Each structure stands twice: as structure tokens, then as C-alpha cells.
């Protein structure tokens, strides 16, 4: 079983659109949506949820108004601006609370509770292409990467049990905790970028991140025809850094039209269209190079 993780650095390059094509083309595979902050893969894969679980992580400080004397010690000590004055007492701003417990520990009245924090939900579902594990992070919840790791772990277990050929992961944007959590221990990382200065800039940061963790990259330039010169520049930079170029995908409104219909562009049945051919060629190229 091989794990493919699709990331981008910059948001909006087409990660999810491409991942959904991989899902349609791969046989006997399992899928994971690790973009837990703004998950979209389910809009194409239409999961039938079989199992729902709470994601409990860390703690949240809660001031018991009846015990609070308004001394302001919590306000003085909180480094995250999470304590606010309300009248002559204090309250915790939940979305800013880091869960460090300092206020809880030092409140002279022991007026602050520290319950477990419900940070969201994760799901195991069936889809027309295979099982899928996905999640929904709660509003303002900490995005440490733990939920990403949990989704990957659950998906990996299903894939191993079913003797699946691939685990295909739709990764998060950026280079922070969630991305780091999605990369470690994978078999192939595919970076999707776009032929813009922003795309190149962000790709370079993603490439450095991958290098930092000793992971080699595959690269796809999406919407390449918007700027062919920039496409070549990015491919050159990628190759210079040891990445393998998988191919180019053109800008085509068919991708958005397919999205509106709730399918990936390779499922539109339009096998003669260039964009479909490009997607298929990239998938075949990737699986070939992974052998």
C-alpha cells in the first residue's frame, strides 16, 4: 500500500480538483481529506458517513462567574489576549484560549475550570470510489496537525486492512503544523502549483519544507497556459531542487463545470478532451514513477 499526499503551499492551485481525479482513476484505494480546516473533497466524493467521532484535543479555560472576584490575575498572566474584562469580572475568549492552563493554575480563588476541548469531528465514510476518512475542525479550533494525523492514521488502517493499492490524501495549504503532519512517513508527495510569481514563491517554500524533512517531491503546474514562461521557470526550479515534474495541466472551465456537477473532470466521460487526457497522463506518470 502506498500513500500519496497532495499539497500546494499556495491555496487555490487545484489540489482538491486533482486529488478527486486521482480518486476516480485509482482502483482499490482509500482516501483521506486532511485539509481539515476547509475540507472540500467531500463535495466531489459525496461520502456516505458510516461513523462519526468527536475530536477531543487539549483543554479550554472557563471562568466560573460565581467564584470570580475580579482580581485580574488571569488577565495579567495570559499571553494570548484570551482574557477579557466584562463588567467587574473576567471572561475567557474561547477562540483565543491557547489551553496553556496558566490562569487555571494561578487563580487565587480556583475559579477557573479546565475541561477537555471538543475541537471538531472526524468521519469514516463510503464513496463511489472507495472508503474515505475526513474531518471538520471546529471554529477557531487549534489546528496543531493532530487531527490531520488522526485522519491519516485511520485511513491507513483501513487501507492496510483492505489490502488497498493506494491511500490518496488531499493535503492542507501552507507550510505549518497541518502540512508537516500530512507529509511525514508518506511514500510520495505531489506539490500542485500555478504559473504565477505567488505560485513560484510558495512552491519554493514548500520545496524547502520537504527538503527539511528529507522528502522528495513530485510537481504539477496547474493552469500552465496562463503563463508558459513562468511554468518553465517553476519546472526548472523544481528540477534543480531534485523534484520530479509529473506534467502540466491546462486551465479549463470544464474543471469548474465538473465541480458544479459534483464530479471530477475525468468522470465527465469526455475522454477526448485535452484536460482529461492530461489528468490521466499525470496519474499514469505518477504511479509509474512510484513503482
Amino acid at each position: 500500500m502506498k500513500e500519496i499526499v497532495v499539497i500546494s503551499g499556495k491555496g487555490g492551485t487545484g489540489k482538491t480538483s486533482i486529488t478527486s481525479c486521482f480518486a476516480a482513476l485509482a482502483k482499490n484505494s482509500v482516501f483521506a481529506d486532511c485539509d481539515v480546516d476547509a475540507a472540500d473533497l467531500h463535495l466531489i466524493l459525496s461520502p456516505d458517513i458510516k461513523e462519526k467521532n468527536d475530536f477531543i484535543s487539549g483543554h479550554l479555560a472557563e471562568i466560573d462567574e460565581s467564584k470570580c472576584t475580579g482580581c485580574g490575575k488571569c488577565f495579567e498572566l495570559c499571553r494570548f489576549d484570551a482574557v477579557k474584562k466584562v463588567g467587574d469580572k473576567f471572561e475567557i475568549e474561547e477562540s483565543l484560549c491557547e489551553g496553556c492552563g496558566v490562569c487555571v493554575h494561578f487563580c487565587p480563588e480556583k475559579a477557573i475550570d479546565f475541561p477537555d476541548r471538543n475541537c471538531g469531528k472526524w468521519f469514516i465514510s463510503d464513496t463511489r470510489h472507495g472508503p474515505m476518512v475526513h474531518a471538520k475542525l471546529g471554529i477557531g479550533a487549534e489546528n496543531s496537525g493532530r487531527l490531520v494525523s488522526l485522519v491519516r492514521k485511520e485511513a491507513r488502517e483501513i487501507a492496510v486492512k483492505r489490502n488497498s493499492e493506494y491511500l490518496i490524501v488531499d493535503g492542507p495549504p501552507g507550510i505549518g503544523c497541518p502540512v508537516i503532519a500530512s507529509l511525514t512517513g508518506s511514500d510520495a508527495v505531489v506539490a500542485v502549483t500555478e504559473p504565477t510569481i505567488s505560485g513560484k514563491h510558495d512552491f519554493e517554500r514548500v520545496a524547502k519544507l520537504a527538503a527539511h524533512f528529507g522528502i522528495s517531491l513530485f510537481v504539477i503546474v496547474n493552469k500552465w497556459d496562463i503563463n508558459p514562461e513562468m511554468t518553465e521557470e517553476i519546472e526548472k526550479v523544481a528540477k534543480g531542487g531534485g523534484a520530479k515534474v509529473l506534467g502540466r495541466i491546462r486551465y479549463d472551465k470544464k474543471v469548474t463545470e465538473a465541480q458544479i456537477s459534483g464530479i471530477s473532470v475525468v468522470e465527465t466521460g469526455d475522454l477526448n478532451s485535452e484536460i482529461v487526457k492530461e489528468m490521466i497522463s499525470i496519474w499514469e506518470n505518477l504511479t509509474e514513477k512510484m513503482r
Partner: protein
Amino acid sequence: MKIALPVTSDKVEDQMNRTFGRAPKFMIYETQTDAFEMVDNAQNLNAAQGAGTQSAQNVASSGAKAIICKNCGPNAYQVLTAAGIEIYIAESGTVKENIEKFKKGELKSSSSANVEGHWL
């Protein structure tokens, strides 16, 4: 000598836990007498991060001089090494099988972390 193993139950016939940092329990096995005691590690199942360091601390506090595990990340490795605990790698197997291998000197000791840090 006391050896720690990450486990899910207190039965030596059961498989070792696949991970170190998120193991529900540690079995602290005394190789001389074949007696063992259990250390609860459940607090780390929900830790947002740092399960490796915390679990390593639990193992270090147990008096174990060695640990048998499948994977050991960089932070856990640092703590275990500072505590003078030898790390032996076992790909799979039950507690009993791995203790036997250890007694026969069939397990390889690790000189560095063998997986990257992660959140699970």
C-alpha cells in the same frame, strides 16, 4: 533488568502497540523474574502534542533500563537517551516473543530515532 514495552493490554501473548508515544499503557517487564507491572499512559492519547516526550518521561520514571518498540521519534529518543535507556527495535510480535528475542540478544539496539516526529 526492567524493560518497557508499549502495549494495549496486560497480556504477554498480545501484540505490542504499534506506536510508542500514543500507547495506552507500558508494560514494565522484569527479565530476571518474569514479573511485570503496568504503567498507564492514557493521558497521552489526547495530548495535542508532545506525546513522545511525555511517554518517554513515563518510561524513564518507571525504572526501566531498556525499551522495546517499533518506532521511536526524535523527541522521545532524546529523553530516553538522557535517561540512559537503551532502545531496541522490534518490527512486530507479541510481548512474549520480543522478550524472548531480547534475552537471546536477537534484538538490535538503536543509535538514533528511526521515525520523524509526528502528531500521532
